[in-house]
């Protein structure tokens, strides 16, 4: 059968207003006359939506289809329910309301068919959350699915639980998830582990349930399980100092795993650009950072390996650089040897000169993290940082600005201010305000002379007056007020600024504020004219 667009429909046709399947009309029986209304297959729906020339047209197509879907749901047709929900989820992505599909998700999840569960669970993840009472109703289905032993189904249930599981659901289902941690299938185990992380975030007391299995899980060879376990241990350590102390004893094990990855050589299964499972390496390095922080013994255990990674990692590809950056951050955060720290900061300095902008961005971000703790080490790279101010890339110049401001001190303030003032004149508009206020703050902290300070503020006001906060003007007047010897100078500067650009509202405002100097002003301007 062809509809008027010549498209084949049949299996997907929904019968409006009647229960049970069946296509076709029985003539001569008005009471049982059936109106078969064509409803689109998902591909056809997508094509119709794509074909719509205007937003209004698209809305019309979708609203028409949603009417079909609603009717089909009311109908209670179990065979096509999953297709109807799939269509609904598609239009939901485009921003159309889909709340009437929530209960259908529940029905699909409760079905015995994998096809139904797959869409049903997806629908639950996209449409349901804690605020809907309906969300609790899937707890039972999840419990059943977790215990049935069908791996793909267990996977779906765990995925859903880790995405939208509320605290109540997590409490209910923790025993089921715990059982799955030590099951034979790595596929289910790795998902159970990450679900445990989510559960701890929702119900911190569950840490006591999921802490004990960790030690055993660390001996697994499967990368997915290891990755999840490291994530779980990290979560536990970040939440509890007791857990942190407990897991310090696995530092040697972690070092061993990382060393194996680093020295293992090229293995196709997990390597990215010749680096063995960089994702796992990065996770381990993050955990080592947490465990080694402020702990002499742990730091010592990992020192050699960190040095090895820092010097031997291939930096020609992104994957290697990801590992290297993480190594540098770990070195700087733990109690590492002084030589190693210098090496780490120098690696960052080298990266600042890399042609790859992503590398430069991460280098700037990393240096920013270190500027408080290792100020002198980072200072050594100040010239390169200042160079980055000239970047055309707004993300990079923003980082460079933050770092430059953090590097200003009493000995470099004049030079730095020159650079920053130059940057202020040409920087992108969304950075102006931050740059201006940063300069003013730095000027206040490190001004070598009052005159220099006044000049700096004036320059900022004239360059970026509209982006400056009002209290900057108040500060200026206060400053001028407190420097008798500079009154004439100040007023002259102000007048010149006004003469140059009368539209500088702030400059005019400043003059207005210094009304007590009006007499002086008039005298001075008389002198000038």
């Amino acid at each position, binding site marked *: 059968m062809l509809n008027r667009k010549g498209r084949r429909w049949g299996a997907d046709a929904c019968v409006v207003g009647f229960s049970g399947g*069946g296509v076709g009309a029985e003539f001569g029986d008005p009471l049982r006359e059936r109106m078969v209304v064509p409803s689109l297959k998902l591909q056809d729906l997508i094509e119709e939506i794509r074909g719509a020339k205007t937003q209004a047209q698209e809305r019309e197509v979708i609203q028409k289809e949603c009417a079909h879907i609603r009717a089909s749901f009311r109908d209670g047709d179990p*065979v096509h329910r999953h297709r109807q929900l799939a269509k609904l989820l598609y239009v939901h992505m485009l921003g159309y309301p889909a709340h009437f599909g929530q209960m259908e998700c529940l029905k699909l999840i409760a079905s015995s068919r994998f096809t139904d569960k797959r869409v049903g669970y*997806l629908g639950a993840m996209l449409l349901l959350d804690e605020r809907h009472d309906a969300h609790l109703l899937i707890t039972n289905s999840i419990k059943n699915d977790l215990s049935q032993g069908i791996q793909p189904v267990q996977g779906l249930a765990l995925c859903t639980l880790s995405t939208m599981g509320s605290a109540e659901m997590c409490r209910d289902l923790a025993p089921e998830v715990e059982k799955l941690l030590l099951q034979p299938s790595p596929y289910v185990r790795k998902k159970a582990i990450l679900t445990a992380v989510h559960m701890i975030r929702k119900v911190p007391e569950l840490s006591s349930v999921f802490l004990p299995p960790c030690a055993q899980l660390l001996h697994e060879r499967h990368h997915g399980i290891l990755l999840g376990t490291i994530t779980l241990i990290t979560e536990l350590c970040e939440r509890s100092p007791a857990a942190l102390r407990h897991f310090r004893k696995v530092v040697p094990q972690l070092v061993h795993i990382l060393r194996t990855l680093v020295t293992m050589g090229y293995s196709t299964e997990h390597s990215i650009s010749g680096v063995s499972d960089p*994702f796992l390496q990065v996770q381990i390095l993050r955990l080592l950072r947490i465990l080694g922080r402020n702990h002499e013994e742990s730091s010592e255990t990992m020192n050699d390996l960190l040095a090895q990674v820092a010097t031997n990692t291939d930096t020609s590809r*992104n994957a290697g650089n990801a590992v290297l950056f993480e190594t540098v951050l770990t070195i700087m955060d733990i109690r590492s040897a002084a030589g190693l720290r210098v090496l780490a900061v120098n690696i960052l300095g080298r990266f600042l000169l890399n042609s790859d902008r992503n590398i430069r961005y991460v280098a700037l971000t990393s240096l920013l993290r270190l500027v408080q703790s290792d100020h002198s080490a980072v200072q050594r790279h100040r010239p390169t940082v200042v160079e980055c101010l000239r970047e055309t890339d707004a993300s990079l110049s923003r980082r460079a600005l933050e770092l430059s401001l953090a590097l200003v001190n009493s000995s470099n303030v004049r030079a730095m201010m020159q650079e920053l003032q130059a940057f202020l004149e040409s920087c992108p508009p969304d950075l102006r305000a931050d740059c201006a206020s940063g300069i003013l703050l730095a000027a206040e902290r490190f001004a070598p002379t009052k005159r220099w300070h006044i000049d700096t503020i004036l320059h900022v006001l004239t360059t970026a007056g509209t982006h400056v906060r009002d209290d900057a003007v108040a500060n200026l007047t206060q400053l001028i007020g407190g420097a008798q010897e500079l009154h004439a100078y100040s007023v002259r500067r102000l007048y010149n600024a006004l003469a140059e650009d009368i539209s500088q509202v702030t400059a005019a405002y400043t003059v207005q504020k210094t009304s007590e100097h009006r007499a002086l002003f008039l005298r001075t301007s008389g002198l000038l004219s």
Partner: protein
Amino acid sequence: MIQAILVFNNHGKPRLVRFYQRFPEEIQQQIVRETFHLVLKRDDNICNFLEGGSLIGGSDYKLIYRHYATLYFVFCVDSSESELGILDLIQVFVETLDKCFENVCELDLIFHMDKLLLLNSPLSSLETVVSSLHGGEGSVTRVKDLYCCRSQRTESCTGKEVHYILQEVVMGGMVLETNMNEIVAQIEAQNRLEKSEGGLSAAPARAVSAVKNINLPEIPRNINIGDLNIKVPNLSQFV
């Protein structure tokens, strides 16, 4: 933690929207629009990192994105994630999509890409993949006959498949698996499970309902074919 994964085309039309933190529907759409506008402003040869928009969470969050021809893949992450690592993760995801959809035009159907720039290159040359996938000159194109297989469209090439694949890579906002072979094997097993159900279990139900609705015409009880002299052999021993 990964807060959201968004895929949209060059016109800002969403192709995949997945949040790992709950936002009301209107806010979700706003975030997609805002992200698109932020990302659209970026040239192709500057870095892939952006400070996040105002809606999605403030200074701790950033947007890490990749632009492939007509699609933007955007991951919104917090400061606990490795920026360069996420770049590789996006690549793993895209390559896995490539492996899972046998026909280039299936992906085209979901993503409506005019020209598909996906590669057959082995994992080791990820960097080459990355640089050439940025589109523009020097890109390696594997353009299968885009229109030959329209008629072979399978039921499976709709938006939800991309979600299923994503679910094997990222779960609950955390990285689950990055071994592409394992992910593909799992997806194929699940697809087979679906196919086996669709074929066998639905058919009997459909057959029954079809039979129930057969409109049989009235069969005459008496057929008069006139007098026929038919010699019938003696079959008494079989009676």
